[in-house]
Each structure stands twice: as C-alpha cells, then as structure tokens.
C-alpha cells in the first residue's frame, strides 16, 4: 500500500466502495469530532470485468440476527470445518458441500482478492423483464411523432422475451390490450379518478383467476400468464402489432380551448400502471417508463390547473406556500412510489417540455424506486432520443446495464452502527443490533431496497462509531463492513453480490495523522454534499448552507493549521486541500441554490446527484473546465472567470451540460473561416479537439448532457458564465483583469 490514494483507488475498483475515512477513529467521541462522518459511497453493481460470478449459494452465518456471508475476513478452522463469523463471532459449521475445504483448497469467497464476490442463485421462477410504457398523448404532433419513433425503435432493443405493455394517457387513460388480432382493444379510465389497486385490477379483469379456481379448474398456472398477457406481451410476439399500434397513436382528441392546457391525467396513468403490475407481476423486475410532455392538469396528482393564465408553481410560490396542488400531488406520487417500490418495480420519468412538468411532485417516483429521470425540451431532440436509446445499452458482456429489485443488507462489526443511507432506495425497516438510533439519510434500518439500479448507481451509507472511549480497541483490530446485495440480474437471474471490507482503527488522539492521511476528501465532499442535498429537500436553503459552512469551518478548525488572527497562515494538508473548494462550488451548485432554477430542475439535478458515482458527483459539484489553445495541450483550468480568455476554447462539463466556448479571438477566426484554409489546419484541429472530447463524454454519460456550442458573446455562453467563479465581473473586470 504505497499511498492512501492508490489504496483508495484500488478499493474502489475492487469493491466499489469509498470511505470518507480509511482509518477509523476508534471511539464515538473522537469520531464525532472528525466533523465528516464515517461513511462510504457504495456502488453495489460496480462493473467488474474480472469478477466471474460463482454458481452456488453463499454460506451464511447461522446466527439469525447476523446471517453474514462467509468472507475472507473470517477465521476458518479447516480441520474442524468451522468458521467464525467476523461480525458476531458465531462459530459455524461449513455446509457439507465444503467438506473438501483446506488451506490450499479454499473456496473463492475465502480468498482475499474476492472481498467482493457475486453468487448466482436459483430461486423462484424466472420471469422476463417487463417494460410498461406510459405515454402522454397531449403532445405536439411532431413531438408525439418523435416519441412514437423512439418507442418503436426501443422495441428492437428489448430482449425478445421481455414483456411490454402500453398505457397512453391524455384526458383519459388507456391501457392497451396487446394480445388481440384485428381490432385493437384498450381499457379506458377516467383521468380524474383515483382508483385503488383492487379496483384497477377488477376493472382490467385481472382479478379473475379466482373464478376459475372456484369453479374447480385448478389451471392457475396457465391462467395467470394468459390474464396478464392481455396487457403485457413478449416483444417477439407482438412487436409488429405494437409498432402499428404506436404508429396509429393519435394526439389526445379532446379539444383544448384557447387559454387552456390540455387535460393530462398523469397521476391516474401512473396509478394504473402501478396497479397493473402490482396485480400481475409483483416482486419481479419491471420498469414503468413514463413519457410526459407537460404537467398533470387533472385528477389526483395534478400539479397545475388547466388555465394557462395560472402559471405552474415556482420556488417563489412554494416559499410563499402558494402552490396549492403541490402537497396533494406529492402525496399522491409518494404513495405510488412506495407501492411501486414495495412491489420491486421502478418508475422512469422522461419529461420533455419547455415548461415544467411536475418533476418536483413526481420526483419520488424515480427517487424511491431507483428509476431514471430525464428532463428535456422536447422528445424531438437528440438529447431525449439518445438518452432513451442509452437506457437499453448493453454492457461489455452483452447484458443490459440494469438490474432490478435489489435489496442491500449492510452488516457491521460491533464497534460500528449504521446511521442511514442516501440514494435511490427505500428502507426495508430491518431493525437490528447494528442499526444506529441516530439517523443520517434514510435510517433506522440495516436493509434498503433499490428497485432498479445500474452499474453506476451509488449509495451513500453513513455509519456511526459506537465504541466507547473507555473501551479501546485492541491494537491491530479492524472494523469490518459487509454489503450484501441481492438483485435480479438483467438476464433475470437472481444474484447476490457480497462485498466485505475492513479498515483499521486508530486512536484519534494518538494517531490523528494516520486518520488525517487516510481522509478521502473527494468521497467526503460527495458524502457531505449528499447529506446537504438530502437536507435541502426538507429544510430551508439557507439553513443547509449554514450547516455546510459550519461543518467546513469545524473541519478546518480540526485539521487546519493556522495562527490565530492570521488568515495567511492557514494551511490544510494535502488530503484536505481540495475539500473547501468542493464546498465552495457545492454552495453555488443548483443542488443547493434554487435561484435561477425551476423546482423541476432542482428536483432533476438532485435526483441525479443522489445516484451518481463519485466521479460524476464531483463533476456535478465542481464542473470541469478544460482549456484548448495554441499554447499547449488541453489542460484543466480553474473554474473561474479568469479562465475565459479570447484565444482559448473552453470545454466545460457540468454533467448536465457540456459547453464548448470559443474565446473571442477564436470565434472571430472561425467566422473568418480560417479553419477551412489548408494553411491553418492547426486551427481546424484546435477547433476539433474539444468537439472530440465532448463526444467522448457524450458517449458515456447518462443522461445525455445538454450539448452547447457557443462562443464569446453568444447567448448560450450564460451556461458557462453562470458556473465559473465570478472573480471577474463587470464590476471588477477592469481592476482584477489588470492585476492578473
């Protein structure tokens, strides 16, 4: 272990885990004084090319309250064929299959390099993946057309045996029956009426299996698929039908008079989609994909009335408590989200409209179920089209980069307790000895459900050191944490991934420098940011900022070196040096600042912030700025207005936007057409370089960022200008410019 940096990187690559502290303060008191809590970012399904899953069941600790999985940290008595659980110290017999075990013949899970291991287990019937499209038809004609094409295209990307369903909505909600030939059938629901799951199932005729049973026809097995298949059909069977059906989709025919919004029953549509899946395929991987082009305007979950003269709520309205539909709508969607999550399904929201679409109210649908949230201006943009296409991207092994119905179980050694998690998950309310009473994020449990996740989905998990100060940990003692993630793989296999990590304890008083050195400021920044954003959801913005500031001050106070009353004497060690900068940008970020953002945008940004991995999160907190010039190779530059120079091309990546900004001179050159002149081929290359880099980013980013190509003085330049540190402004440009 050369440096902590390498160690951290190794750990992240192997286990997908990054702790804020890699050496743990050994007592509760000390830990709290560290300001940044002991926490980690966990990417449960981090892609590991070198991790072939094993095809057997994990061996579990036999203590009912523990059930930890056998791991390399366990002590094994090869003779007695016993192993001791490193969490509860229970001694367990190996199962019979492990009879041949010995020091030289170890199962994979005992090998140190397999601190993360994945099991494939055979449990229950395998059900195909389910994709239920919920499509808004109150769209402009070309938008609808584009959406239809995207949907049709998506059919070709789905696995052949996946089940698809289609619900369309406008003033009414239509559930399309896909099994019939000839006449196309759909079940129609009023868009203004909330229905219970039972009612929905009755109305869709899904509760009928009961009847045949009563009649003494025990054909439930064949019956079940028959019933559900009316609405959910294997792609390969009905892709032609569905393609036609999508092709024939018309805009919502109900007249919209001038000055009105179209009546859009998003709330009911979602409710029906949820009810449909709930009744037919509970606890199996399913995506409800909502495509909406505007705010819900009627029924439960309505966000705004249909009068155009009443604008949709703004932050201002919300602060003034003027958003009359918000609470009710939010409650509706929360209820739905919880039901969906309980069933292990997820809701994706693709909202494409110039105005807000109610993401603020609907955000929980995606947040709680692990669904995607995509916001665009129109379905007829490459942003949406490519993003949507990317949903069905396949990983290196030809599998979809999506997994379903995961449950994450965290086990800790007894010095630690679990304070909570922040991410696209819900609590499973598993109380246990290792659950802390202090909650950070979604707490009070040691298990969470993540209904949908992809290899980059990252949760922040917060711990609490509970070891009392007067009960020192023996020298060399290590604290351990085990993450057990059970999920449905996109191949429909059930898998269990187990990651077990251990860190050294250190006495914060005597070994502070160890702890300090093992500080992961990037992870810490993201973890703190998540906490801040999480708080911002429920607290007033200024409070959160104040809290963040105080934390930063306390941290600096704790780890900085300075002379009193001498600002210039302030020094932070290398492992802390970037942290304040992150906090600075975090304060200005749209995750905490709502100014200039609509409530929908804030929700959108926060949604993504809460699920992306560390790298992406950092980009979100502090956008990356690259400079391209004739003066050297591309280089990252400060996110500062001083970086904007006439002879530079800047490439800014804020995660949500990629901005290419041509400096004043460069722009003039380009206008003059130098790039087309053979003698200025280098200029052409210069112009091309940021484009290529941007393309590279675009290739991998999900969702597709907004791609902005602008120049000095261009209106779109605001995207850049709003991000950079305004060290130079119209007020001080002259003076500071002179200085620098």
């Amino acid at each position, binding site marked *: 272990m050369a440096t902590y940096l390498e160690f951290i990187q190794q750990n992240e690559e192997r286990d997908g885990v990054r702790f804020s502290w890699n050496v743990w303060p050994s007592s509760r008191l000390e830990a709290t004084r560290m300001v940044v809590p002991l926490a980690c970012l966990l990417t449960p399904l981090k892609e590991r090319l070198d991790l072939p899953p094993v095809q057997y069941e994990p061996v579990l600790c036999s203590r009912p309250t523990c059930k930890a999985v056998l791991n390399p940290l366990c002590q094994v008595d090869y003779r007695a064929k016993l192993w001791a659980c490193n969490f509860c110290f229970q001694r367990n017999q190996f199962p019979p299959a492990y009879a041949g075990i010995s020091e030289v013949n170890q199962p994979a899970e005992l090998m140190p390099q397999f601190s993360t291991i994945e099991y494939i287990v055979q449990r229950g019937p395998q059900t195909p993946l389910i994709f239920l499209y919920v499509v808004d038809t109150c769209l402009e004609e070309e938008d609808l057309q584009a959406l239809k094409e995207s949907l049709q295209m998506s059919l070709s990307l789905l696995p052949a045996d996946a089940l698809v369903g289609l619900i369309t909505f406008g003033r*009414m909600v*239509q559930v399309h*029956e896909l099994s*019939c030939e*000839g*006449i*196309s*059938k*759909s*079940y*129609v*629901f*009023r868009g203004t*009426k909330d*229905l219970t799951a039972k*009612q929905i199932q*009755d*109305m*869709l*005729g899904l509760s009928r299996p009961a009847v045949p049973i009563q009649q003494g026809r025990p054909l439930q097995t064949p019956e079940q698929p028959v019933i559900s298949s009316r609405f959910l059909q294997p792609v390969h069977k009905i892709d032609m039908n569905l393609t036609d059906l999508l092709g*024939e989709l*018309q805009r919502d*025919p*109900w*007249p919209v008079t001038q000055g009105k919004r179209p009546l859009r029953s998003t709330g009911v549509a979602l409710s029906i989609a949820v009810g449909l899946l709930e009744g037919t395929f509970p606890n199996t991987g399913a995506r409800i994909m909502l495509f909406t082009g505007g705010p819900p305007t009627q029924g439960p979950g309505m966000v705004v009335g249909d009068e155009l003269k009443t604008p949709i709520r703004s932050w201002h309205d919300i602060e003034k408590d003027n958003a009359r539909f918000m609470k009710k709508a939010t409650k509706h969607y929360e209820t739905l989200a919880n039901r969906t999550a309980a069933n292990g399904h997820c809701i994706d929201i693709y909202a494409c409209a110039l105005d807000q679409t109610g993401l603020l109210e609907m955000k929980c649908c995606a947040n709680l179920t692990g669904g995607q949230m995509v916001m665009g201006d129109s379905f007829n943009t490459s942003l949406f089209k490519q993003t949507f296409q990317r949903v069905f991207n396949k990983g290196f092994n030809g599998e979809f980069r999506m997994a379903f119905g995961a449950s994450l179980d965290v086990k800790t050694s007894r010095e630690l307790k679990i304070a909570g998690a922040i991410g696209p998950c819900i609590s499973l309310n598993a109380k246990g000895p290792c659950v802390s009473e202090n909650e950070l994020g979604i707490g009070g449990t040691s298990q969470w459900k993540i209904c949908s996740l992809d290899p980059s989905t990252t949760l922040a998990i917060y711990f609490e050191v509970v070891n009392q100060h007067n009960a020192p940990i023996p020298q060399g003692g290590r604290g351990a944490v085990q993450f057990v993630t059970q999920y449905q793989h996109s191949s429909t296999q059930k898998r269990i991934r187990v990651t077990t990590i251990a860190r050294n304890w250190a006495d914060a008083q005597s070994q502070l420098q160890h702890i300090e050195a093992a500080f992961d400021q990037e992870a810490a920044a993201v973890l703190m940011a998540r906490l801040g954003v999480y708080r911002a959801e429920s607290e007033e913005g200024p409070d959160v900022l104040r809290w963040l500031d105080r934390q930063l001050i306390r941290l600096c106070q704790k780890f900085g070196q300075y002379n009193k009353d001498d600002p210039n004497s302030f020094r932070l060690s290398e492992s802390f040096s970037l942290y304040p900068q992150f906090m600075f940008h975090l304060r200005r970020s749209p995750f905490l600042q709502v100014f200039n953002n609509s409530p929908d945008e804030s929700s959108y940004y926060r949604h993504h912030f809460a699920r992306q991995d560390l790298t992406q999160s950092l980009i979100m907190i502090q956008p990356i700025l690259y400079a391209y010039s004739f003066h050297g190779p591309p280089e990252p530059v400060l996110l500062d207005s001083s970086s904007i120079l006439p002879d530079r091309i800047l490439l800014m990546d804020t995660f949500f936007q990629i901005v290419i900004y041509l400096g004043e001179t460069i722009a003039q050159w380009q206008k003059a057409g130098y790039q087309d002149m053979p003698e200025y081929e280098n200029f052409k290359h210069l112009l091309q370089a940021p484009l290529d880099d941007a393309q590279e980013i675009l290739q991998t980013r999900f969702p597709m960022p907004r791609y902005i190509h602008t120049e000095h003085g261009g209106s779109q330049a605001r995207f850049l200008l709003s991000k950079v540190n305004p060290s130079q402004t119209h007020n001080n440009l002259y003076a500071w410019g002179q200085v620098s």
Partner: protein
Amino acid sequence: MSVNQQAHTGPPYGQPQPGYQGYQQPAYGGQPLPAVPQSQYGAYNGPMPGYQQPVPPQGYFPSLGFPSKGSPVSLNSDTSLAPNFIGSLRAPPTSGAPPPASGASLPSGHLAYSQFGHGDVQNGIPASAAPMQRPPASQPFLPGSAPTPVSQTSTFQQYGHPPASVQQLSNHMAGMTIGSTTASAPPPAGLGYGPPTSVPPVSGSFSATGSGLYTPYTASQGPPPTSVSQGLPLAQPPFPGQPISTQRLPTQVPGFAPPPSSTGIGLSSYPPTTGAPRPPTMPGPPLPGQTLAGPPASQPNHVSSPPPPPSTMAGPHPGPPMSGLHGPPPPTHPPQPGYQMQQNGSFGQVRGPQPNYGGAYPGTPNYGSQPGPPPPPKRLDPDSIPSPQLNELPPQQKPRHRIDPDAIPSPIQVIEDDRSNRGSEPFVTGVRGQVPPLVTTNFLVKDQGNASPRYIRCTSYNIPCTSDMAKQSQVPLAAVIKPLATLPPEETLPYLVDHGESGPVRCNRCKAYMCPFMQFIEGGRRFQCCFCSCVTEVPPHYFQHLDHTGKRVDFYDRPELSLGSYEFLATVDYCKNNKFPTPPAFIFMIDVSYNAMKSGLVRLICEELKSLLDYLPREGNMEESAIRVGFVTYNKVLHFYNVKSSLAQPQMMVVSDVADMFVPLLDGFLVNVNESRTVIASLLDQIPEMFADTRETETVFAPVIQAGLEALKAAECAGKLFIFHTSLPIAEAPGKLKNRDDKKLINTDKEKTLFQPQTSFYNNLAKDCVAQGCCVDLFLFPNQYLDVATLGVVTYQTGGSIYKYAYFQLETDQDRFLNDLRRDVQKEVGFDAVMRVRTSTGIRATDFFGAFYMSNTTDVEMAGLDCDKTITVEFKHDDKLSEDSGALLQCALLYTSCAGQRRLRIHNLSLNCCTQLADLYRNCETDTLINYLAKYAYRGVLSSPVKTVRDALINQCAQILACYRKNCASPSSAGQLILPECMKLLPVYLNCVLKSDVLQPGPEVTTDDRAYIRQLVTSMDVAETNVFFYPRLLPLTKADVDSDSLPAAIRNSEERLSKGDIYLLENGLNIFVWVGVNVQQGLIQNLFGVSSFSQISNALSTLPVLENPFSKKVRSIIDMLQVQRSRYMKLIIVKQEDKLEMLFKHFLVEDKSLSGGASYVDFLCHMHKEIRQLLS
C-alpha cells in the same frame, strides 16, 4: 248501424207507420227518413239541422238530439239488454205488430224471419196475451234456425237482412209500435205499452239490423237470444217472454224514443214519433209501470242489452225474430236473464226517453220515466227486482238470466257503421267541434283550420261551459295528442313556415303562436289572442290588410292562418344554450354477455345493422341522413368503438369503471355512416367473433345509458340510444338491481311496488337524459325476470320505446325483432322536444299521460318523440267558457328534426262549448275516453292498489252514465239501462280495460309483462288502445280471396267461433290464428301446407308461403295488419282445444276470463247496478 237499418226499415215500416204516422211523421219524418242516409252520425247530424226544420222535429228536436247521442244502449241494471230489444221489437209488433214484423222479415227476405216476424207480430197482436208472444218468439226461432244458440246466431244472421228492414220499420214507427206491441203487446202492457214500447224497440232493433249483415244478425240475434232466452226461459217461453218482452217493449218504447239518439238513431227517431203518439196512449207508461216494473227489475239487463242491439238496427227485427229465436235460446238461458230482460225493457224505455223524450216529449218521458222509474227504483237491485218479476213471471225471468249477447251494444257493429257512414267522405276540419270518424274508419282529412284527428282527438268535442257541469257529468275532458303522427300519403304534411330571424308571431301575453283563430283588428295592425284575449301589435313585416270580412288578404297564403297544423322554423332563441343544434346521433348499445351471444342475437343485430344503417331517417329530400352513429357493446364493462373513417380497423375501448361512467373517446365514436362504411362493416363483422367465447353472464345497465348520455353530451347533440339488453343487471354498478319479483304481492296493497322502479336512480338518470335530449329505446330479450318496471323508467321518461321478446329464439322471433328494429330506426323522430298545450281561458291542461318527463307543470319534455308516441292531456276548468267562442287548444311542439333543424309544430283545435249536458254526451268519443281512462288507471296502479283503481274506474263510468241517465234521459224507468249513443260501447271497452293484464293479471302473466304493457299503453294512441283492449277478430275463412278487403270482424267471444273456421285475432301486439277442429282439410292444406289438423305446428312464427288464393289472401291480410301497427305482431298459431287456446281465449274479451274478468254481459249488469245505485 242503426242508421242504415233505419233506412231499410223505412219502407217496411212505412206501411205500418201510416197508422202511427201521425206521431211518427214528426219524429220519423225528421229522423228516420232523413236519417235514411243511414250513417247514424251523419244521420244525426243531418237530422239535427234537417229535423229541426221540420216542425215536429222542433218539438222532438231536443229529443232527437238526445236520441242521437243517447242512442245509448240502455240496459237494465240487472240483466241483459237483448230482452229489451226484443221487447221493443215485440212492442212494435203490438202496435203495428204485423206490419213491422212482416216488414222486417220481408226486407231481409228471410222466410224464417218473416216467420218469426209473423210470429212476433202475431204474438204482438195476441200480445195482449203474454204467452202468445213468447211462443211465437220461440216458434220463430225454432223454425228460423236450429234451436241451438249457434244456429240461432246463424239464423239471426239471416235475419240480419230483415233487421235492416226492421229498422226501416222501426223508423216508420209503425214497425216500432208493432214490434213493441208484439213484444209488449202480448204482455200486460198490451196496447198501452205496445205503442210506445213497440215503437222504440223497433227502431232500436231495426237500426241495428240495418247495418252489417252479420253484425246485424248478431245484434238482432243478440237481442233476440236474450229476449228469447228470457222469453222462453221465463214463464213458459211465451208468457214470460212476452210479458217480459212487453215490459221491455214498453220500456224500450220509451227507451226507443230515446234510443233513436242513443242506440239506433232510427229508434230514437221512431220513438219520438211513436213517443209522440204514444204519449197520448200513455198506456205504455202504465204498462211499464206494471209490467215493466216487474220485468224491468228482473229483466232490466236484458232489456238494456237488447235495446242496444236494436239500436244497432238489428234490434227491432231481431226483436221479432229474436223473440222467435229467443224461444229456443231461452232454454239455454235461464230465468235470471229474464229479470234482466225486464230491466232491459226499462232500459229500452229509458233510452227512448233520453233522447227523444228528454227534450221533446215530456209526455213520453213521463211514460217512459214515470212508469219505468217507479218500478225500477223499487227493484233497483237486481235481487230485489227478481222477486217482483218472479212474482209476475218467475219462470220466465229465471230462464232469462242470460242476456242475449247480440242484444247488447256491439263494437263491431259500431265500427262497421261508422266505417260505412263516414269512410267515404273526407273529414273536413273547418267546422268547430266536429266529432271525427272513429279511428277504425279509413277516412281522409282535409285541414281547414283545425288539426287532423290523426294529431288530436278529444274525449268530447263539446265542452261543458262550467266546471260544475263537467263535474256533474264526470266525463273527463282530455285530448289525445300525437304531434308527429304519420299521415297517409294522400294528406299533406304540415307546411314549414319560415319567419326568418324574427321567429314566429306570438301573443305577447300567453305566447300562443299565430293561428287561424287569432282575430286581426284595427285594419290588421293588431291581433287579439284567441286564447287570452290580449291584443298584440302585428310586427311590421307581418302586416297585411284585411278584407271586408275581417280576414287577412293573405289568409290562404299563410298556413298559420288557414290550417290547423303547420310548422315554424325556430330561431336561435328556441335552441338550447342559444346555439343551433347539431344533427342528432344514434348509438347502438349491444349486450354481448353470454346469453346474448348464445342465442345468436348479437350476430343477428350486427348483420342487420350493416344494411339498416343505410336507412336512417333523413329529412325531406336529403341525399343522406345527417344522423351520426356510434357503437357500444357491453356486459359487465362497456366497450366503445372508434370507427373513424381514417382507421384501417376499428378500435375498441373498454371502460370498466362502471361506477363512474364516461366516454373514452370523442373523435371517431360518432361517425357518418357513409364515410366510415368499411370500418363499421369491419366492426360489425368482428363483434360476434370477439365475444364468441365470452363466459360473462353479468350485465350492467345504468352505466350503459350513462355512457350514451355522456357521449351525446360530449358531442353536444341530441340523439337516441338503441339498447339491446338480455338480463337483470346484477353486476356491481350504479343502478344494480335485484330480483324482487313476487307474485304473492298481487292483490295486496304492495302490488304497486311491482310497477314502481326499484330505485330512484333511474329517475334521476332519466332527468339527465331528458336534459341532454338523449332518448332511450330498449329492446329486451329476457329469459327471466329483468324488472321492466325499473329498466323502463329511462325509456319511458325520455319518450323512447320498449320492445320485449321473452325467451327470444332466433328462428321464431327474428322476423319480429328485425321488423321492429327496422321500423324503430327508420321512423320519423324529433329530439329534444318540449310540448306545451295552451287553451282558451276557462280551461287548462292539468294532467299529462305518456312517455315523457315534466320538470314543471306545463311543459312536457321528451328527449325523443317519434311518430307513434302519443300524449294524453287532461283539461280542467278554471273558469267559465262561453258557447260563442268555444274552446281552443293549441299544442306547440318544439323539437329538433332528424337533420338537426329546430322547429315548432303547431296543432290547433277548436271545440264547442255547451250548457246542456246532452250536447256533451252527444259529442263524445268513447275510444278516446277509453284511451284516457286506461292511461289514468295504468298510472293509478303506481300509487294505489289495483282494486282501488278498478273500482274508481267503474265508479267514474257509472257516474258518467248515471249522469246521462239522470239528466238526459230522465223519462224512463230507473230500471232501464240507457247508454248515450256515443258511449254505448263504454261498458264493453271499460270491461276490457278492467280485464287487462295490468289490472287483473292471470296466473300466467309475468310481472314484467304487466309492467311492459303498462308502459306500452301509456303512450298508445286511440287506434292502438282500441284494438289493444278490444282485439280484432276476423274470420279468415270468410275472407273474399278476390278482394282487397278484410273480412268483416266478429265479436270477441268464443260463441262466435265456429269449429269449422279459421280466425285471426290481433291486438296490436300479437296475431293469433285460431284453427277450429273441424276445418276442412283443404283449407288446412292451403294455409299450412299440411294435410291434417293434427299436423299443424303451433311453433310456426310465420305462415308458409303457398301458392294458392287462400294462403295468399291470409298472408296479405296479415301483412296488411302488420303494416298498420307500430310494432310487428307476433304470430301465434292456435289450434282449437290445444294448450295455447287458453292464451287465445284470454283475448276473447267479451267472455268471462280465467283470471276472473267479467263477461261483457255480466259486466253490463254490474254497471247497471252501479248506475242504479247512483241514481237512487
């Protein structure tokens, strides 16, 4: 009827008359002779004026007038009418016995009759000796026909002719007297009675005979039989008979006098004449007093019954023959009739008196009344009467129990008479207060300022001036309005008047529309409203100068000034939301539950719709219908279909949220048939396939209507839903019903609940439907109880129609259903209609019956109104009317035509007003009255026990008749049943109403049937109620295969059926073909294509198409009948002595019904009793 008879009688009597002439001349001269024309009404009318002129008439006039109206068959309370007639007949004989008899017989040329006649005459002569008469009667009968009743009838038929002659005789008075003499003569009354009695009876009988052959016969027979029976049965035929007859005669005589008015005009006329003369003789009275008293009591009924027939013509002659006939029948008929007879006799008198005497001859009245009354009062009760009678003529009376069915007023006869009298001339509506021909008569109408009777018929065309009078008479004042009635091609549809943007000209105050009765004043600058007398400025654009008569110069150019019916084009002010309506829509809503699929119904409907959609109603000459169509199928959930023309395939949209119905689509649900033809065809092809495997048995109902309603709302148009439904809606949904059928409730206070809807849900729904103009037509195919009473609520209140096909089977019922469906889809219909009836100050419309909804007390709202729907409106006085100005009605119907045009249809009708009750009774229409009474009663069952309703009905009719008896026919004995001529069928029709399934269900009648019938009747017009309550019975074997005409109908009684014949009975819903066991094989072969009676299948729903004249004829008759009715009637083959015969017999309404309904005769007696109780 009587008229004709009279005409005939004229000559024969003429001879006898001489003697009487003196008397007769006045009366006869006026009536009979002039009457010669035959048509009773015509005659009367004629007579009125004509007679009036004659001096005598004046005196008589009143009487005449009365008579004409009064012709009422007067029955003695207790028993049969026939006797009276007979009596009368005989009576005549007494006076002019020989002549009349001979005359009667002669005319007919039937020896038998003549013989009888002779017999009678002889009897008559001998009359003094009661026995004599009867024997003769019996004798004649015997000879004339076989003693058996049947034969009698036949014989009577033969007599029929004679009757005619008889009538003439009666007319002549001589005959009358003779008749009377014979009849009465023999009896004690002897001469005294003879004259009076004889005369009237004769006339009555004669007139009767005069009309139809058969009918006359029957009539004549009727009376005869009764009389005969009575006579014979009574004291040895001769005595009792005679006495009775005599009595009757006497009574009749008086009656006859009146009869003229009532029964046989001739009679009445005679009576007067006779009366005149007789009065002097007076003996009549005394006799009546004595004999009558005796007899009347016992015989009253008989008497009464006879009188009517006599009136019908046959009366007189029959009388004689009858008497002869009676001889034989008597045996069959026991004593009681006898009593009745007597009573009848009295009735006869009564009648006589009523018409003629009432006014003209006080003297006569006295005769009639004095003598008559005293006795009757004493013997008012049949029971009490018997005793006296018994005392007098115990034997006879008892045997006479029976009233001769032929002697009582015959609907057939009345119909035939009216047909022959009034069918030839067009009915011109120019004159105020004209009574139109009967609904059974084919006639043309010329609109000259009053609405055609096809649009409006009234119970009376002469309205009492004061409410006191109206209350006294108890005659309901009602109009039966059929605003969109279909006219025969020869008549022109109402003209459409377009007044442009300013809209129709209306009275400023009452808002009545411009009509021919408006008075233009001040040179045409203003007009005075004929309803409220308010003066309104004539709008400048409407101004026109007046000619010297005060008429506008453009009188003939403007339909609204010269016609009774016309239409205005409505302006936007008359439209909902001030927007012109869009064309209406038809939505077909098909039950696709298991039951419907299994029976093949769905496939059938779909197949039919494919072609039927090309025949949607269209306006005028439009190339294609403006009506759009939509389709819904349903079981527990609803399936809407998008059939937009741009689609390759229809789309189905399922709405399972039945608790909160809505329409899932807008565009593409209601489409133009031509544009979406292929998609619709594809849909109709696929519907049966899609649900072929359905196992869904539960259905919803209210949501279906709601769906249609919502669809129309969304499309902002009015329209009609065609719902094809099979079962009780038990699926969980609004309007869910439970099976509450419980026959145990029948005849309890809770019976009314069977007619009430289970839940008020449907009432509210109906209200919504009406507000939107959503009319619901319901086709039901139940295999069990489905609660028509509840399901029909919406249909009923929206002006829709219900069709019910119980146990629907494709093979047997599809023709009927498809024909109904076709007709229902194609028929003219208006939407979103509001009707208001305005009246002259003094009366106002107070009550409405029919299929509609009313949100206030004046406006009748109908979501849809088709050409068959009828609204009955009742009027009450709120002030006095004046005879000068009469009473005016204006019915204004605002509706949307099938092309979406908003229009106003106006019907105007002017009625006379009267200060004399007699005028009221003279201008009544029984058919309309029955229409009103039935609707009134059928509504009553919703709130009162059926028994109460029945009693109220009887009571009201008794009051009507008693009032007449008391005020217009005073001079007769109370024991006499005297019916106003215009109402002589009231008892028989009323009995039919009382016996109908709704008011008196048989065990086989289901609750649904009753509710169904109740609703059907409520929107029936007069013609429909007429045939529904008194079915038409046609002897097919008597049909003339070479002519287009229908065979003459016969009366609805089993006695009239011959084992050797085939009959057809229709009541507007069913057609029965009854085959007697002895029908010739050839006929069976020709008609059914099988070789023997036993091979006839009664499962046939149509007659086989065979190429022979008889088959063709029968089928053409059936086709003709089907065309006449608004519903396709179900054809049922009934073999005599087969199971189904029970069902068939149910429709023989003159007979006692199995469910306890009284026979005509019994009921008549009952009525008489009631009347007498009222009078006492």
